[in-house]
């Protein structure tokens, strides 16, 4: 039996934990704070005054809108591609036995384990060699490589929990392959796919490195922010956009967490 005394952590540990959390999250709060500053050329602390004018400025800038729409489009299409391919791959790896199965499951996960810069360079040279012009679609392909992993990892965990006899039972009761997928598999892996899809969307939305190597003239939102930081004017606009990015990526990850917290780990959430 455990006594209460053992459950209580010492004061030092509490302080260390609080400090650690603060170290991670205070800078994010500062980003939010500077979105309201009146000083547009440098970030001085404390801000000389507070204003909401940057929200209006950001709203009226066409380059913000172009970057935002591009990012949403890329993330949506990369997620859609990943949902189809990742699910198929997870189904193959978890439901059948074939030669090289373990190798394939490792190779699928590899893009997320490799540094993004390697993936980026590899894709860039591959596109050049194949003489594929850099475009919207090359960004989508680049993002799909790691989005597939996220979907695959979520789906494969759920597939493993579906007992093989469920699928056999469905077939036994007269359902063909399509009906079995529609009525038995999809309802059972649905939340895992939703969670994987949300994570994939969030990852794609704030991706910088692979995008740098696979984009042509286009700027996705993170790339736009990077470029904007170098310019001296209207700096708080970047902070306004950063706030939006945090919201757009944080909500899906939170959603994925709640959808899968009973049992499944959100694999690959750390990229």
């Amino acid at each position: 039996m455990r006594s209460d005394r053992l459950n209580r952590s010492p004061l030092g540990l509490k302080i260390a934990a609080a400090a650690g959390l603060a170290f991670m999250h205070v800078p994010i709060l500062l980003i939010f704070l500077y979105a309201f500053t009146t000083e547009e050329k440098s970030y001085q602390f404390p801000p000389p005054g507070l204003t909401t004018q940057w929200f209006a400025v950001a709203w009226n800038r066409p380059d913000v809108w172009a970057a935002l729409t591009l990012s949403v489009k890329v993330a949506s299409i990369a997620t859609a591609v990943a949902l189809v391919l990742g699910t198929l791959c997870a189904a193959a790896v978890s439901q059948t036995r074939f030669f090289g199965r373990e190798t394939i499951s490792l190779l699928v996960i590899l893009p997320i384990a490799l540094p993004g810069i390697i993936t980026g360079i590899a894709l860039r040279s591959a596109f050049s060699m194949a003489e594929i012009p850099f475009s919207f679609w090359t960004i989508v392909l680049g993002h799909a490589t790691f989005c597939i992993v996220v979907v695959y990892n979520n789906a494969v965990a759920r597939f493993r929990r579906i007992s093989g006899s469920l699928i056999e039972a469905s077939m036994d009761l007269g359902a063909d392959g399509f009906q079995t997928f529609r009525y038995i598999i999809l309802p059972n892996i649905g939340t895992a796919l939703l969670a994987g899809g949300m994570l994939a969307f969030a990852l794609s939305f704030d991706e910088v490195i692979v995008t740098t190597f696979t984009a042509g003239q286009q700027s996705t939102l993170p790339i736009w922010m990077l470029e904007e930081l170098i310019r001296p004017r209207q700096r708080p606009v970047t902070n306004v956009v950063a706030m939006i990015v945090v919201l757009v990526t944080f909500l899906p990850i939170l959603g994925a967490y709640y959808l899968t917290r009973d049992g499944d780990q959100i694999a690959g959430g750390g990229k």
Partner: protein
Amino acid sequence: MSTAVLFDNVSRHFGAVRAVDGVNLEIAEGEFFAMLGPSGSGKTTCLRLMAGFEQPTGGHIEIFGETAEGVPPYRRSVNTVFQDYALFPHLSILDNVAYGLMVKGVGREERRRAAEDALAMVKLPSYGSRRPGQLSGGQRQRVALARALVNKPKVLLLDEPLGALDLKLREQMQEELKTLQKSLGITFVFVTHDQGEALSMADRIAVFNDGRIQQLGSPEEVYKQPKTRFVADFVGSSNVLPAKLCQKLGVRSAYASLRPEAILLSPPGEGALSLNGTVSAHSFLGAVNRVVVDVDGARIAVASPAALAVPNVGSPVTISFAAHELHPMEDA
């Protein structure tokens, strides 16, 4: 009566593993047929061959006169009750039972009525709105049965359906299954490793070992006249008398089987067919005492009624039995 399932020299090899190896059997329509054997003996693979989850690597299968090879599970008029029941966790009990009708395109109202009838048949009316997770093991087993039977299969396959139930529930379900099978007249093919279950329920039993049928016959035949040492051993632990003792008793074959309960213990003396030995161990089993007698080095188990006195270990005894209880066996 026509043939429900026909296996003509059927094999299913997985690489070098011969899961099913040259099996011949013919199951009659309306029969309660048990496939009995230890795990890995090929009985479940035979069931899966009937269901269509496996395809034979050799031989020929017919179900009601139609060739079964290459026919997918969803086009066969057989249904399966799975060992783990395989109820769909995301569907209500009623939707589980109605699933087979739903995928066949039966109308909503009609399949609801059929599913409710099926649930009433397995004595679970008014359970339709629950989820599989809210049911006990015995109840889930009944739902699995209803879900299979609602499709009116020509053959019902049962894969160790009672394995996960406790003893009392198992005995009750054995009776109910038997009654259900008689009233529906559907062919039941039942896989089990429990010889008691096979003996009490089946019309005929096929005893499997190493992918082959060791013996096929009525429960009484299989129990009383085991054809091989394996059957003698597996179906109710018969004594196997070695060649030396067979010779002594005037039996021609190399081995013979002798049921423990067919033997009488008496003080040393002479009987019609008897052997002398010494008691080497005994244990109390409730209705009987199990006494092990050493006869020339062969250990022979005797089931002696508990009312009789148990001789001490080391004391000389004579075991005697009627001549017809001794069954010569085919092989070693």
